[in-house]
């Protein structure tokens, strides 16, 4: 019954989306009554989608094997957390999650959005309904998650063991919330273009959505990077895999949007540009979904490979992105010109930031989709990998970081005061470090060398906006910017240190033998069998010492029976100045064990940086909504006591 109820709720939600679309764009009722109805319908649509998703969760938690999706992706003996996560660890479930978030975001706009005038709000909700409708159709006609399986098997096929990890259980929903949160920015832009109402009020309405989506994307990408690092056992943290690029592209667009929406909200400038970015950002989310869900590109992450569904999503994509760009082209002439500014100004710096981010986005986009075009044009199958992205995108990312040393020190509109003294600390540190690296680490590559210099130069520069201000009266949003920019510096330092100073050792050892890696002596003690709830493993005991104390590492080779798979569980020990990483390999005919060790100085800074960037976003979001609420209350007070 639960499956049928879920499917019914899904159909109802789709019907409500259709109704919402019709009502928003002019069927029946007067203006005033209509917007209230549209809002109510949007809330109903969100509720129905949530019920459908709750039904799927219930089916997974109860291990109802008469449902095809549960039987093919779950197992009754699995820990409950992975039954729960199994609901979205597959194609149909993740698409249902995607649509549910989309519908709930629409409901939230209907409930909470008070900055927009009624017509723009109505058009926005209409656009959101149009988006949802396409994805509802995709679920109902091409990927029904509630399909029954008759006869029901006694047992399910299990969840891919690589997905059985607490971090990964919550990684996709975080990314999805981010992806789909950008749909609101898209709908707001479409709504405002329809009603020709592009201005600071729209930017203020859009900003919290962009910020929230961007925070979740940042967290999702950071978590995904760490997951790849510790679960795959390759010791790398970014592979330029199409699936990773799928999350990076919307993040790049959202980062640019986040900066330009601030210019529009605070200064009324960059109107057309901001609308364009809002359309691009969610388009990138959809392109990402298409890439991941169609399995059309070579990816080691391809969990779902189905070209038929790919063409359905491709059709949706063409309609939405094409339609939005067409609307943009029609209306952009009517959008008022923004407030003027000079080249050397905060706006100028933000334009430079936006251009650099767009160029990086373009490079990642071309590199990710080039194999598709090449195959369509010439029939040749090829893939683009790290050599391309590293050599083309990384220098631009460093240029962007170098811009960050300068741009935040500039003032709005025009900057005639001498800027040099403000730039000095960051530039001085960067140049000093650059010189120092030639002396201290002459052999490292030029990318890590520049990374160390620019990263360390960005540390003092990111604090500089606080200098000469009353720290108590500085808005929380400014602290947010400081922390986020500091996070970028920290992440760059981690990446540069990892690629410059990592030490690696590969050895074949017997128990009792000792190998060295970097400053560590690692003694290989023994290999013992161990067992978990749904796996057995061979576990090695390593004793690592550096000077006095001893750290014990226990890497495993783990066997899952449902489905039959082996995974490597790396052992990672963190220290203030780096991580020791150990992977256990196979036993050879002589009874020796393969062992791979890495000493990775300051590698943790990569993810600490990502976390700081997200934290900065949270501070900006909290600071802004607090200020706005206080302003609204003051306005209300003035009306009460004239």
């Amino acid at each position, binding site marked *: 019954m639960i499956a049928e109820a879920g499917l019914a709720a899904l159909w109802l939600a789709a019907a409500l989306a259709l109704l919402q679309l019709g009502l928003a764009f002019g069927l029946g009722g007067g203006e005033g009554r209509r917007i209230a109805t549209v809002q109510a319908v949007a809330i109903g649509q969100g509720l129905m989608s949530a019920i459908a998703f709750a039904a799927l969760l219930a089916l997974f938690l109860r291990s109802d094997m008469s449902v095809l999706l549960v039987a093919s992706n779950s197992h009754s003996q699995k820990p409950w957390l992975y039954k729960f996560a199994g609901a979205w660890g597959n194609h149909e479930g993740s698409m249902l999650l995607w649509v549910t978030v989309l519908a709930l975001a629409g409901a939230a706009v209907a409930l909470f959005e008070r900055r927009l005038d009624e017509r723009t709000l109505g058009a926005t909700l209409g656009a959101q309904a149009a988006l949802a409708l396409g994805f509802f159709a995709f679920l109902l006609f091409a990927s029904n998650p509630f399909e029954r399986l008759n006869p029901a098997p006694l047992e399910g096929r299990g969840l891919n063991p690589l997905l059985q990890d607490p971090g990964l259980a919550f990684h996709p929903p975080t990314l999805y919330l981010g992806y789909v949160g950008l749909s609101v920015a898209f709908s707001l832009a479409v709504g405002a273009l329809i009603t020709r109402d592009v201005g600071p009020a729209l930017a203020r309405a859009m900003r919290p959505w962009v910020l929230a989506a961007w925070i979740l994307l940042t967290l999702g990408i950071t978590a995904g990077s760490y997951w790849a690092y510790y679960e795959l056992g390759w010791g790398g943290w970014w592979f330029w895999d199409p699936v990773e690029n799928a999350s990076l592209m919307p993040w790049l667009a959202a980062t640019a949007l986040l900066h330009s929406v601030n210019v529009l909200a605070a200064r009324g400038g960059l109107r057309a540009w901001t609308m364009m970015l809002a359309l691009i950002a969610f388009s990138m989310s959809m392109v990402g979904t298409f890439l991941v869900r169609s399995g059309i590109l070579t990816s080691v992450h391809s969990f779902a490979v189905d070209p038929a569904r790919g063409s359905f999503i491709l059709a949706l994509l063409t309609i939405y992105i094409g339609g939005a760009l067409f609307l943009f082209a029609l209306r952009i002439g009517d959008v008022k010109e923004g407030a003027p500014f000079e080249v050397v100004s905060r706006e100028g710096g933000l334009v430079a930031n936006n251009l650099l981010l767009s160029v990086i986005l373009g490079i990642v986009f071309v590199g990710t989709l080039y194999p598709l075009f090449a195959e369509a044009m010439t029939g040749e199958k090829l893939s683009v990998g790290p050599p391309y992205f590293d050599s083309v995108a990384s220098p631009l990312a460093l240029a962007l970081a170098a811009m960050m040393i300068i741009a935040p020190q500039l003032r709005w509109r025009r900057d005639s005061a001498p800027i040099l003294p403000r730039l000095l600390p960051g530039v001085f540190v960067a140049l000093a470090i650059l010189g120092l690296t030639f002396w201290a680490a002459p052999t490292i590559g030029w990318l890590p060398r520049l990374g160390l210099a620019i990263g360390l130069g960005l540390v003092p520069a990111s604090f500089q906006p606080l200098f000469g201000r009353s720290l108590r009266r500085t808005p929380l949003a400014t602290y947010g910017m400081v922390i986020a920019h500091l996070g970028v510096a920290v992440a760059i330092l981690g990446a540069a240190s990892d690629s410059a100073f990592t030490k690696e050792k590969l050895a074949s050892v017997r128990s009792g033998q000792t190998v060295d890696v970097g400053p560590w002596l690692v003694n290989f003690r023994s290999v013992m069998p161990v067992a978990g709830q749904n796996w057995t493993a061979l576990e090695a005991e390593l004793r690592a010492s550096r000077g006095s104390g001893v750290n014990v590492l226990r890497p495993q080779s783990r066997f899952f029976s449902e489905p039959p798979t082996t995974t490597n569980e790396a052992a990672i020990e963190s220290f203030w100045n780096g991580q020791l990483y150990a992977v256990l390999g*196979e036993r050879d005919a002589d009874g020796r064990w393969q062992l791979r060790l890495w000493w990775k100085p300051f590698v943790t800074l990569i993810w600490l940086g990502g976390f700081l960037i997200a934290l900065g976003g949270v501070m900006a979001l909290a600071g802004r909504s607090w200020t706005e609420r206080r302003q609204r209350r003051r306005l209300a007070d003035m009306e009460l006591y004239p």
Partner: protein
Amino acid sequence: MTIRPKHQRLILLSLALVALMGAVLLAMWGLQDRAAYFVTPVDIAAGKAGDGRAVRLGGMVVNGSLRRNADGVTVDFIVGDGKATTPVRFRGITPDLFREGSGVVAEGRMEGDLFVADTILAKHDERYMPPQMEPMTGNMTANVQ
């Protein structure tokens, strides 16, 4: 420099266009010698992976070719695609789905006639297969599935 409001949008527009074209040109330049990242032994025989250029080699581990060296961490094997073969050397821990007669994807570079791999890609599950290897799957599916 002061920009008149009328001209500002025009300047921004042209800047954006220049940036976009720059991105595409830069990407094309980057792709020129790095696009054929995925190669098979036939491509290598045709000289598509010049000495020292990082590429990803895909193919089948030829039956009977796998040899583990005395040091315990180096394996030698031959990758074939039905038309040509390439000898491969890898120092490291091979993934669990790596065995003779099975598909393999290795990252590395040609050093003379030998392909030296830095990484043997682990597959997330036994169903994974790069699209580039589809033509070879005839003799592969039995082992892979």
